[in-house]
Every structure is written in C-alpha cells, then in structure tokens.
C-alpha cells in the first residue's frame, strides 16, 4: 500500500472521474473529509451551490458535467498540498468552467498550493498559470513561464519572397497559403528590427497566442511524421 501520509496531501482528479455509483452527492461529500485532513466544508458548500449539484442524486445518475463539477468541488475543498487536475471539465459548459476558474484562482490566492492542470483549452486556461509545460509525444518541448511561452512564436504574412526574407534562417513551424499570400508561424521571439523590416517589406506581423503556438508545434510534428514514410513503415 502507498504511503498514507503522502496520499493525504495529494488530490488527483482525472478526466471523467468516477465515484461509488450507489452513493449520492451528499454521501460522497460526507466521506471525502476522511481522506483529507485539510478539507474545507465551506468551500464544498459554496461550490455545490454555485454548480447547483443535486445533493440527493446518486453519482451513477449524474450527467458528465455534474460529475466533473463534483470532482472539481472535491479537489478544491480538499485543499491538498498537491492537487492534480487532468482535463477536469469534461461536459462542463462555459459558465461552469468560468466558475471553476474563479474558484481555482480565488482558493489558490488565499491558500497557496501546487496545482497541476492539464488542458487542451489553452487560451482559456493560460492566464491561470504561472508555468507552462508543453509535451509532444511524451517529450517536453517547452517549459517556461506563461508570459515567456506566449512570446514563443509569431506569425508573418505577406508575399512569399518577402516573408522568406524576414524569416531568413529562423525555425518555421507551419506554412499556410491564402491566395498568393503566405502565412508562416515562426518559432522564437520577434527581434527589435523585425517591425521596421516588416513595414518595409509590407508584411503583417503578429504575436501568436499560446494556443496558436501549441497548434503549430503539433502540426509541425505531424507533418514531420508523414514526411518520413520509412520511419512509419518501421513502426508498423
């Protein structure tokens, strides 16, 4: 059996977290404090009310969104020193996610602890974070502060020759065409003189959001995989 003392300080919520099917929401919330010495019933009460969780409903009968809301309630009320949230919002609508974000940062501001959140809703969640870790097939491709990460790539758009002149030997993640124009996502930060050069070459320059960056990294690695059929053959 695992170390019970350490387990008490950890709370793990995975995607589509399930609890005992026969238990009602009230039963589950009555049992949960036994696992977490730092449990806050005040937080649990506030969240069940904000999420409008049906207290008498058995967990088996809960909708996906309600199950997610219950798991989030337990995670935040646990006040565990290490809280892991793995895509915790399956089935949660936009307003419930907004409640989740508010409660998460509010709880964290008053009771600081380590929260590790994995998410595909990057633009929504980026501002909640301090640090970002981007994984590509299990390898860490970026680990940095969230603000530095947002400056991790930029987008150049214009006529192809001019785009290539500005990009020069920098690392291109994706290229897309629209009519005669080329739009490329470039890895790295903009340089001081890029704006002036862009003006001269009649290019548009914009910083990519963290979500743009992650999407570009993903497409880049997918394209690389299809460019090399021999590695695919070896794999199959």
């Amino acid at each position, binding site marked *: 059996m695992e170390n019970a003392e350490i387990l008490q300080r950890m709370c793990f919520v995975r995607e589509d977290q399930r609890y005992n099917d026969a238990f009602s929401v009230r039963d589950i919330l009555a049992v949960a404090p036994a696992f977490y010495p730092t449990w806050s019933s005040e937080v649990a009460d506030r969240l069940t009310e904000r999420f409008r969780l049906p207290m008498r409903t058995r967990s088996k009968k809960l909708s996906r969104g309600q199950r997610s809301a219950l798991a989030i309630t337990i995670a935040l009320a646990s006040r565990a020193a290490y809280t892991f949230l793995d895509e915790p919002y399956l089935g949660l609508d936009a307003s419930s996610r907004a409640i989740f974000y508010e409660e998460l940062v509010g709880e*964290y*501001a008053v009771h600081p602890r380590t929260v590790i959140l994995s998410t595909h809703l990057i633009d929504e969640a980026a*501002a909640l974070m*301090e640090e970002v870790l981007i994984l590509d097939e299990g390898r860490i491709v970026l680990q940095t502060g969230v*603000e530095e990460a947002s*400056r991790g790539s*930029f987008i150049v758009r214009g006529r192809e020759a001019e785009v290539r002149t500005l990009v020069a030997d920098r690392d291109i993640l994706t290229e897309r065409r629209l009519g005669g124009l080329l739009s490329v996502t470039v890895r790295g930060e903009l340089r001081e003189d890029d704006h002036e050069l862009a003006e001269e070459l009649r290019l548009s320059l914009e*910083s990519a959001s963290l979500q743009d960056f992650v999407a570009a990294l993903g497409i880049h690695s997918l394209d690389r995989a299809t460019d090399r059929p021999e590695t695919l053959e070896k794999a199959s």
Partner: protein
Amino acid sequence: MSPAPDGRPIFLEIADRIADDILVGLYAEETQVPSTTELSVHYRINPATAGKALNRLVDDGIVYKRRGLGMFVVTGAPEALRARRRAAFTDEYVRPFLAEGARLGLTLEEILDLIRKDQR
C-alpha cells in the same frame, strides 16, 4: 482574460485598466483599489499576475501599500497620469493617425477638415 493580440503581457493590460479608472475618478485619491485576490478572481488570472499589475502601479507612484489594509490611490495620481498620457499622446495617437492618413493619400488640410467636422 487572455493576452492582447499584440502580445502585450496581461499584467500591463490590467495595470492600465486600473490607471484608466483612477484617471477618470472611479477610484478617488486615498481610496482603496482591488486586492490581488479580487483582481485574480475577477479576471480569472493567476494571483502572481494580479500582484505584478499592482506592483507596476506602485513602481509608477500611482498606488501605495498600507500595511495590513491594501493598496490605495496616491494623492495627485490622476494629475500625474494625465501628464504622462499627454506626453505619450503624440507617439501613441497622432503619429499612427497621420501615417494612416498618408497611406490613404489625405492631405493635412483634408485631415484637419475631418477633425473639425467630427467636432461639430
């Protein structure tokens, strides 16, 4: 809240919003501005980011900390903000405005006419 499309950090955006509110008198001199926690919950941002926004305003001499109470607007802050914004007005508004006018082939006289018409 997500970063601005020009890649400007969120903490600067929030510091500017609070400064805007101080400039127009929504937060009067010597009254309290929102705390780190209030800002982070309201904008759904990390408390460290909210703290950076407030520290920025402290560094700029716009708000100050009263121990155990929170952040308050410095006396004279609206004047100071107005003076700073006026100094930046040429760079931030007039030059881009004239540059766009030039791209559209408008003469200075035509531009001034447009301004006068809009004023009426």
